[in-house]
C-alpha cells in the first residue's frame, strides 16, 4: 500500500497531468495569442510581439460589449429557468418517488443517450415552418400561417437550451437534497412547522448549495454557447461565442478571438465570485 505521501501524486497525478496538458496549456496559449500583435492564425512558434491592441479593439467596439452583456443576460435567464424547472423534479425524486426513484432517475438521463446536436436539430424541426408546433397551431385554427418567431430567434435559443439543460440540472439539486438529514424535517414538524414552513425554512436552505451549483453549471457554459445559436438562433439569436468562433474561423484572426475569449472568461469568473459572495453558502449550509 502507498503511504499518505505517495497517495497524492498517485491519485491526483494522472488527472492533473491531463488537465495541465489539455486545459491549462491551451488556456495559456489563448492568453498568449490575445497579447500578440497583428492578425492572422499562426502556431505558437510564430513571431510573437506583445501588444494589447486586441483588448483595445474589443473594448473600443460597443457592439461586442453589448453582445457580451446580452449573452450574459441570456445565460442568466436560461440558468434561472433550468434551475427552477429542475428543482421540482429533484424534490420529487428525493421525497416522493420512494422506491421508484432509481427508475425515474434513469428515465431522466435517457436524453443523454441522444447526441446533443441531434437534440438541438430536433428543436429546429419542431420550431420550423412545417414543424410540430406550427402545424399544431394551424391545425387548431389559432394561426393562419407559420409563426416566424418560433425559429431563428433568441427565444428559440432559450427554449432549446433550457430543454437541453433541465435533465442535467436536476442532478446537483438531487444530490444536495439527498444529503438533507430527515431529522431536521422531523424536528421542524415537532416544533409545529407545517409542510410549507418546513419546505421554505428547512428544505430550500439546505438544498440551496445544489441549486446554486446547478445555476452556475448551466450559466458558465451557456455564456460562451455558439452551437445552438448557430442552429436555431438566426441573426437575432447570435451570442458572444459565435463572434469568438467567427474570429477563429471566418476571419482567421486568432489574436482578436483570443482576446474576446479571455475577456469572457474573466467576466464569467468575476460574476461567479461576486454571486458567491452575495450568497454565502457557509451561512445557508447547516
Amino acid at each position: 500500500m502507498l503511504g499518505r505521501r505517495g497517495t497524492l501524486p498517485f491519485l491526483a497525478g494522472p488527472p492533473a497531468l491531463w488537465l495541465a496538458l489539455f486545459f491549462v496549456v491551451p488556456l495559456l496559449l489563448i492568453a498568449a495569442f490575445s497579447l500578440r500583435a497583428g492578425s492572422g492564425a499562426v502556431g505558437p512558434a510564430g513571431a510573437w510581439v506583445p501588444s494589447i491592441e486586441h483588448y483595445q479593439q474589443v473594448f473600443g467596439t460597443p457592439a461586442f460589449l453589448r453582445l457580451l452583456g446580452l449573452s450574459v443576460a441570456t445565460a442568466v435567464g436560461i440558468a434561472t429557468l433550468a434551475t427552477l424547472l429542475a428543482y421540482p423534479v429533484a424534490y420529487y425524486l428525493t421525497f416522493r418517488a420512494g422506491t421508484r426513484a432509481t427508475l425515474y432517475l434513469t428515465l431522466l438521463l435517457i436524453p443523454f443517450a441522444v447526441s446533443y446536436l441531434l437534440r438541438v436539430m430536433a428543436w429546429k424541426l419542431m420550431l420550423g415552418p412545417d414543424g410540430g408546433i406550427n402545424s399544431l397551431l394551424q391545425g387548431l385554427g389559432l394561426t393562419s400561417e407559420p409563426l416566424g418567431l418560433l425559429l431563428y430567434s433568441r427565444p428559440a435559443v432559450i427554449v432549446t437550451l433550457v430543454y437541453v439543460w433541465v435533465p442535467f440540472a436536476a442532478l446537483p439539486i438531487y444530490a444536495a437534497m439527498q444529503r438533507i438529514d430527515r431529522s431536521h424535517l422531523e424536528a421542524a414538524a415537532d416544533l409545529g412547522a407545517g409542510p410549507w414552513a418546513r419546505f421554505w425554512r428547512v428544505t430550500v436552505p439546505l438544498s440551496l448549495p445544489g441549486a446554486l451549483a446547478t445555476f452556475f453549471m448551466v450559466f458558465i457554459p451557456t455564456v460562451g454557447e455558439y452551437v445552438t445559436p448557430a442552429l436555431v438562433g438566426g441573426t437575432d439569436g447570435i451570442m458572444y461565442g459565435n463572434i469568438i468562433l467567427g474570429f477563429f474561423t471566418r476571419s482567421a484572426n486568432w489574436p482578436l478571438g483570443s482576446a474576446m475569449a479571455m475577456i469572457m472568461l474573466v467576466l464569467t469568473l468575476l460574476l461567479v465570485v461576486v454571486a458567491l459572495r452575495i450568497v454565502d453558502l457557509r451561512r445557508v449550509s447547516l
Partner: protein
Amino acid sequence: MRVSALTRFLGLSMALGLILAACGTQGGGSPGASSGGVESQAPEPNELAILEWSGYEAEDFWTDFAQAHPDTEVTFEFGDTDANILALMQGGSQADVFHFYTGWQQFYVDAGLVREIDTSKLSNWDAVPDAYKELGQIDGKQYFLPWDWGFTSILYNTEHVPEVTSWDVLMDPAYEGHVSMWNDGPAAVAVSSYINGWDETNLTDEQLAEIEADWIAQKPLNAFYWSGEYTDLCPAVQDGTVWVAYAWQGCYATALAAGDPVAYATPEEGRNSWFGLYGISADTDSYELALEFLDMKLAETTCANAVSLFYYGCANGDVMAAIDDPVLIEAFAINDPSILESTNFTPLVTEEQRTAWTAMWERVQAE
C-alpha cells in the same frame, strides 16, 4: 510539503506541455512557397489528408482516385470559409492537399504554405483551358490546380418575389425574415461594391463604413446567415423559409430539379463568378500521391460527377462541352454566352483588406 510537491509536479507538467506544443507547430521552413518536383528520400506513406469543404468528401467527388488507389487511406478535415481554410493551414493543419477559392491564392504563396505543382505529371492537364490554368499561377508558377467553378447571384422564390434585376434585393425590407446572406465578410463587401458601383479592391475607409452600416441595417431582414449551401440554405429555400438568397448555382439547380418555384437572377450589376483551386501543402510527405489525387480530380468521371450530381462547373473543358441536361444548361447559363461579359470575377485581396472586411462582418453580426 505535499502542496509544494504538487505545485512542482504541476509546474513541470505545464512546462512539458508548452514544450510539446511549441514543437508541434507547423514546419518552420523559410517564408516563400516551396518548389515542386522534389522527390522525398523516404518512401511516401500510402495515405492522404485533404482539407476540404463539407460535402466534397463524398466519393463521387474523387471517384477516379478511389478506383485507382483502393488501398490508399484518404481522410478529410473540413473548413467552411476561405478564411477558415487559410487559418487551418496557417495553424498547422496536417493536410496534404487543401481546397479554397479565388481571391486567396497570394496568401498561401507568401506564407510558404504551398508547393508548386509539377504539371508534367498530370495526364489530364491538357483538358484544362489556358484561362483556367492562369488562375492558379503566381509569378508564372503553377501553384494551384483549378477545379470547380460557378456563379454567385440571387436565388429567389418566384411565387413571392417578382423578377430580380439587382443585387439590392438583398436589402429590400419587403422580404423581411425571408432573406439569407452567406456568412462571409468578403462576400458582403463584394455585393455592396456591385450595388454602389465601387471597385472592391480599392475601397476607402468611408466606403467600408458605409458598407458596414448597410449590412447592419440589412441584418433584421435575414432569417439566418447561411454557412453550408446544401445543409443550411437549400432546405430553407425549398421549405419556403427563404425567398431571396445570396447563392451559388448548385442550390439553384437542386431546387430547379426538384420542381420548386425558383429563379436565378442575372443582376444588372453582373453575377459573380468564382473558381475552386487545389494546392499541395509545402509540408506534405506525400507529394506524388497528392499530384495523383489532383490529376484524378480532373479525370472525366470525377469531373462529370461534379457537374451532374452536384451542379458545379469543372475545369475539364471536354466534360463541360458535353453538357446536354436542360437543368445544367440553365444553371451554367450555357445558352447565354454573353453572360460572362458582365460577370464580376473574384479578385485577389490583400491581407489588410481581408482583415478589415472580416472584422467588419463580425461587427455587423454582433449588432
